[in-house]
């Protein structure tokens, strides 16, 4: 039904349109460019059979903190394309890449306290836990849950959900030795870059 693949530069305009159509937190094109030109491995799209982008995940690495970790900037799936497990598939793809390419220890995200649907997805399906509450995180004054999921100690496997979740254990065994590099050095950021808020 829907193809899950890495995003290319040509997908960015459609990703922005998808974001504007269904989420209240929006970003200018430059912020999408910043993501794909920094961590091209961490952007995934869901493309339907007509070639339309119906969902995406936009993620990044936090490079300024001590612990190398990933962060989900934005995740969206069009309302018309629910019940296909797209959000789960997109999240798994981005999380795998964070761990495999950048050696991320954990991945974080923010979610509105009132957004039960998303909260359930993160806790029940994807294994996130509440790490903290950020008061008045959103522009309209709502609080956010700061949620985290540990990536490196993967004792808990989620076999029942998606078998391809375990792509990392296939073929090449030494992925844990890789990465890390991109987190240890602080690179100059694009000037004028404002950290926009995540979903």
């Amino acid at each position, binding site marked *: *039904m*829907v*193809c899950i693949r*890495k995003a290319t*530069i*040509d997908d960015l*305009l459609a990703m*922005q349109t998808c974001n*504007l*159509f*269904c989420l*209240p937190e*929006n970003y*200018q*094109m*430059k912020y999408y*460019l910043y993501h*794909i*030109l*920094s961590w*091209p*491995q961490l952007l995934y799209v869901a*493309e*339907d*059979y*007509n070639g339309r982008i*119906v969902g995406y995940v936009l993620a990044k690495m936090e490079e300024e903190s001590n612990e190398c970790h990933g962060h989900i900037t934005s995740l969206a*799936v069009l*309302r*018309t*394309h*629910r*019940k*296909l497990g797209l*959000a789960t*598939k997109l999240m798994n793809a981005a999380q795998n890449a964070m761990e495999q*390419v*950048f050696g991320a220890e954990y991945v974080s995200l923010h979610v*509105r306290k009132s*957004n*039960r649907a998303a909260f*359930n997805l993160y806790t029940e399906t994807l294994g996130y836990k509440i790490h903290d509450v950020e008061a008045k995180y959103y*522009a*309209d004054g*709502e609080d956010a849950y700061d949620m985290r999921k540990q990536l490196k100690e993967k004792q808990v496997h989620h076999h029942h959900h*998606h*078998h*391809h979740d375990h792509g990392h254990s*296939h*073929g090449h065994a030494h*992925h844990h030795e890789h*990465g*890390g*590099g*991109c987190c*240890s*050095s602080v690179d100059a950021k*694009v000037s*004028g870059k404002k950290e926009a808020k995540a*979903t």
Partner: protein
Amino acid sequence: MGASLPPKEANLFKLIVKSYETKQYKKGLKAADSILKKFPDHGETLAMKGLTLNCMDRKSEAYELVRQGLKNDLKSHVCWHVYGLLYRSDREYREAIKCYRNALRIDPDNIEILRDLSLLQAQMRDLTGFVETRQQLLSLKPNHRMNWIGFAVAHHLNSNASKAVEILEAYEGTLEDDHPPDNERCEHGEMLLYKISLLEECGFLERALAELHKKESKIVDKLDCKEQEVSLLLKLGRLEEGEKLLRALLFMNPDNYRYYEGLQKCVGLYSENSHFSPDEIDRLDALYKSLGQQYQWSSAVKRIPLDFLQGDRFQEAAENYIRPLVTKGVPSLFSDLSPLYDHPCKVDILEQLMLKLEHSIRTTSQYPGRAEKEPPSTLMWSLFLLAQHHDRRGHYDIALSKINEAIEHTPTVIDLYSAKSRILKHAGDLAAAAALADEARCMDLADRYINSDCVKRMLQADQVALAEKTAVLFTKDGDQHNNLHDMQCMWYELASGESYFRQGDLGRALKKFLAVEKHYADITEDQFDFHSYCLRKMTLRAYVEMLRFQDRLHSHAYFHKAAAGAIRCYLKLYDSPPKSTAEEDDDMSKLLPSQKKKMRQKQRKAEARAKKEAEEKHEESSAAGASKSGKRHVKPVDPDPHGEKLLKIEDPLLEATKYLKLLQKNSPDSLETHLLSFELNMRKQKILLAFQAVKQLLRLDAEHPDSHRCLIKFFHKARSMATPMTDTEKLVWSVLEAERPTISQLHEKSLTEGNEIFLERFKDSLLHRAAVAEMLYVLEPDRKLEAIRLIEESTNNMVPKKGALGPVRGWKLKDCIEVHKLLGTVLDDNEASLRWKVRCAECFPYSTYFEGSCSSAVPNSAYNQIRKSSENGSADHLEGGETADSLASNGRLEAFKDLTICP
């Protein structure tokens, strides 16, 4: 820098530069002024003061000072550099490059200036210049990684990928064996993948593959490494290895269609247009059956076979595919199947299949041949599917009855209302579609998707004010009332621009279209910061792709629509310019003195009110801006919110030409581009350019009614021109004389004959007949009645079809509206236009345009009856709704309780 100054002032000068870099502009300004007190003519100080003022929004002073400084010290590279920076800040890149070049003439090895120059060259795609500058930087600082990479990328961009490879290998030669250190593994891996992709681009496939194998352990991005390897193996024809690797990739992500496509290529079962022999279909079927067992969770393995299977096997596969998805209630099922509607045989099978399932569920609550009972929702979802099927087929009556039944079955499912809204839109009742979408919206106020869907429908129904009020419910960003524009919400701006255009409000329409154009200019500008960023970050493949994306940015559909919309506005503005003040005075003079006085008072009051509102808004935003963070840039109030100034331009055709050029460059294969070019150039009397447009139209689609119109109109106009007098006119004539025989539609025929032949070829098509009729009237105005008859004698033929639910009419609503407008305007016959309307109201009973009997335009229509009854019950909807699965919902329900604008 700051040479020729005594030590104290030289230190102050350094302070100015430092303050500029750290954005402490006031401090810098003070230092500059104290130098200037002693040395009022010091060029570099004047220039730096100007640059500082530029950052404090004092632009004109800035330019004056920088120019003055330069004049006083033409030999200073600092002055030239500053002048360049000033231009750069205003995006005047060509001028900036000139300044940097002058600076470098004085100080050729200045690394800072060279680096700044290289960024501008990349931005402006001055690729030879870029290569030169990067070479210079490398020879000045060969121990910097960035300089090697920059030089290689420059050659790559300048179409010399093999040179780029050489440079990267030379760079690798400078590295120690144990490179990279742990903190550079990612960057180094990216560089290696970039090099391999360059080798692939050069066609050195074996070398690329060997390099990939050799460096595999140093490539961090394993997924990309594998994808790159597959691409190389396929190109090398090493299909068995490719297959093995693709199966490994599928294991990691069985939802990536590209892997399936690659796998088909490897096993020799790939075809561009999906045409396969029976034997190939057998083998494909077997392949996907085995993949399906491996990847039970993948929906791709189940969906792809529907593309190649035929007949009974298609039916079986489709049934197996559809059943569980209907049971589950997957809302996107129909859109997923819709590509199959290009194949008439499959449509018939699908229709019968859907009817069979519906019937079986309705009568037995089971799928045929199944023992288990289906849940009640299965009937609702199968009605939902059928409604969309009939909508697609143009059977709006049946579609509406199915969707109504579904809504009756379960009134809380929002998707049903959205689907009904879409059906009504297709059927031609835009107002009802908007109302339905609003009903859906009110069922879950926290879901922006249904809000956007509703806004879209409102705009289609030309309810712009209501649409904006609705959209804004989701776009409040703190103190900002409406950040749709800041967030580059282009679909919205385009849709409202189009609505304003339909309503004849050219100012507001232009405002919206130009806003979209501005977003594209901003995106082009966005790349600037990344020229240096990506070289540091080593995301080179993404960087080069980004540059190529930028090069074709303006061919994107939204830009095309915006530019075409703007051109149309300018053409309309030219054809009927707004009244000048003199003319308005003239109108006024017809009034009695007392009326005049009243009118003037009214105008003055309105102006004062508008002014006050604007000021209040300004105060509001600046106050809020200051409170939040002292530095926050306050957005200036838009001095022309309704685009009135846009209407007052001198030469609308000149403005239109600007956008036409962009379309010609970026959308040369779009019919619309050349139609607009034709219209514009005919008005500008640019005969040869108009002729070019005609030729392009014939190249793209000689059978299109509009191509025919332009061809006939063009030669008709050429014929009516005066005998050529000037040399230019004579030249134009001789070109046309020489060209006309090469046009196969005309040859030696007269225009009337050409028109008749066109009719003969396409006499069954409504739009072609209309074009012929229009041209007949243009060529011979006294044959107007004949032209009208030609249109009225068109018949709405049935398109033959053997399906279960009867034939489909051939006419499209959109086309009929176009014909109606033609009858009313060009042919200017009220009676004929009325007759047409009555006839179309019968064909399209839901059309508000034709005031069809079922449309909301008619007070007692079925629709309006339903509306009345549903309004009473609408409060119930707020309770239910399937919000649990919606990721888009963001729990804003609380916040919006007071803001509902439900009917």
